[in-house]
């Protein structure tokens, strides 16, 4: 009986201390470190550039993935109390490049607090797509970092690139069995076009909320499953669509984008 009573006291103390730690000690006027890790995978396997072999859910074989690159931008984080913090535009554009680990973890300074969700854009918004060349710096520099992610002949960023090989690709002159998915199109400047900009919103409560505080680096670990690009809203057959660039079908692929991202855990 006494033991039960002590345990009860101990448990309530723990509860109180937890509460205190998670709410009252945050100072929302102070900004602290929060990063979002993009961990690229293929189904239940880690994504191995050039060497990994995978199968899509509809049975297509992928004998290699040779390139995976995508833009993530316009991050915003929502606290458990509902307040939203949007990252300033100038530091909210990142190019994730599989094979270059320095790109996997965009990091931010956000107000201290506990966060329940994150939202970001897969791609580049229309404003940045039409900006003066001099303002396209860093990840958006079309003469530098972004030069491989830009359609020079049809002004606009490529949001997402996946390239590789599959025996399902009908062999055509010189191209072997390679597939290429270059998905972009921001809606057009002078004339409306397809808009493949996708906002991804992820709940963080089910697998651990980030508790951001000065003096530590909190990390939101996301899994990005490239195989989900082939299924979800639309089933994408590699045989039927092995090359998709500025093409109406790009919208069918972009519709699958949000399903690629899931929150794995948070390192507090």
């Amino acid at each position, binding site marked *: 009986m006494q033991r039960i009573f002590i345990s009860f006291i101990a448990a309530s103390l723990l509860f109180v201390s937890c509460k205190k730690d998670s709410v009252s000690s945050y100072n929302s006027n102070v900004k602290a470190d929060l990063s979002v890790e993009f961990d690229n995978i293929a189904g239940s396997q880690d994504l191995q550039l050039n060497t990994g072999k995978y199968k899509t859910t509809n049975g297509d074989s992928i004998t290699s993935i040779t390139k995976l690159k995508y833009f993530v931008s316009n991050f915003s984080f929502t606290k458990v109390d509902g307040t939203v913090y949007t990252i300033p535009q100038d530091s909210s554009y990142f190019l994730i490049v599989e094979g270059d680990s320095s790109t996997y973890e965009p990091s931010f300074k956000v107000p201290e607090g506990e966060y329940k969700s994150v939202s970001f854009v897969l791609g580049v918004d229309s404003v940045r797509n*039409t900006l003066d060349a*001099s303002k*396209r710096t860093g990840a958006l*520099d079309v*003469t530098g970092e972004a030069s491989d992610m830009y359609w*020079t*002949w049809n002004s606009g960023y490529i949001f997402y690139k996946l390239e590789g090989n599959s025996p399902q690709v009908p062999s055509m002159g010189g191209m072997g069995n390679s597939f290429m998915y270059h998905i972009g199109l921001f809606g057009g400047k002078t004339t409306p*076009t397809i808009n493949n900009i996708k906002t991804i919103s992820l709940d963080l409560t089910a697998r651990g909320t980030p508790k951001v505080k000065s003096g530590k680096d909190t990390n939101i670990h996301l899994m990005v499953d490239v195989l989900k690009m082939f299924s979800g809203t639309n089933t994408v057959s590699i045989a039927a669509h092995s090359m998709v660039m*500025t093409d*109406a079908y790009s919208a069918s692929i972009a519709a699958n984008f949000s399903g690629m991202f899931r929150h794995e855990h948070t390192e507090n």
Partner: protein
Amino acid sequence: MKFTRNIALIVLLFGISIYACKKELSEPFLGFQQPSNFPQPTYHFESNTVTKAGFELGRKLFYDPLLSHNNTISCGNCHIQTSAFVHPGHSVSHGIYDRLGKRNSPPIMNLAWSTTFMWDGGIFDLDLQPLAPIANHVEMDDTITNVLAKLRHTTTYPTLFQKAFGSTEITGTKFLKALAQFMVMCVSSHSKYDSVMRNEGAHFSESEQIGYSLFQQKCNSCHKEPLFTDLSFRNNGLPVSGLNDEGRFSVTLDSSDRYKFKVPSLRNILFTAPYMHDGRYYDLDGVLDYYSNNVQNTLNLDPLLKENGKLGISLTSADKLNLLAFLKTLSDRSFLLDKKFSEQ
């Protein structure tokens, strides 16, 4: 005696040449000049002020084959000044390793008034235009990052970039801005037509005047004065070739844009043959015959070319002669021969 005379002659010639040089050097750089009979330009000068050093750097880059993968093809190869910067005699141009493109090289002329570039209008900012031919497999086949690296390794360019932009650092933005400065300066506004319109003393001949009236009735809706293009995209009814080039559709993916191409300017038209987006007509007689006899009712044919149930534009042979007389008044030799736009 003969000896002193020779010396005197040499001294005199030397003096003249110094004078000539001086004269050229001291010619003031006026920057972008707005022709009084033109609308306001649409280029964003506020984010790229044209300066003498910037323009000259742009001109040097324009004529530099370093911009291509194997250092053999410059912009000037397919854009020749004496032909209003088109590639005369070539339906489509041959770029690096003589690879052929699929469209006719467009003129570089009065681009400060354009809001879209290329036959399909895929590019919406003149600053971003040079990226396309540099990267194109059949044109220069290089990467912009490699071109910038090559420029940084030269002894001349860092100094020229400093003169133009205040530091020896060569960046992509400066590179693009310099090329744009050269291109916006390529203004053609000194044709006989302009002189007549601005009341500068020139007058149309009778035939030119009749041609002008015909032009206003039958051509001006698309080839709108004073730029001689309304900058729109239209299908002018050319038989679709084996290439099945879908034009503007490839940019907008809107099926009502299939087979539409940018309406080209008619300025300096005597010098810009061959004609049409794929250069299929080698002379103006062919073009006028086409409009009067051969327009096809292809998908999205422009309504103006099928008015009253009739395809094309009705033109008598006398009309054609008068129209040709008028079109000749759009030639601007001072632009075609202006040394300031030539390779130095």
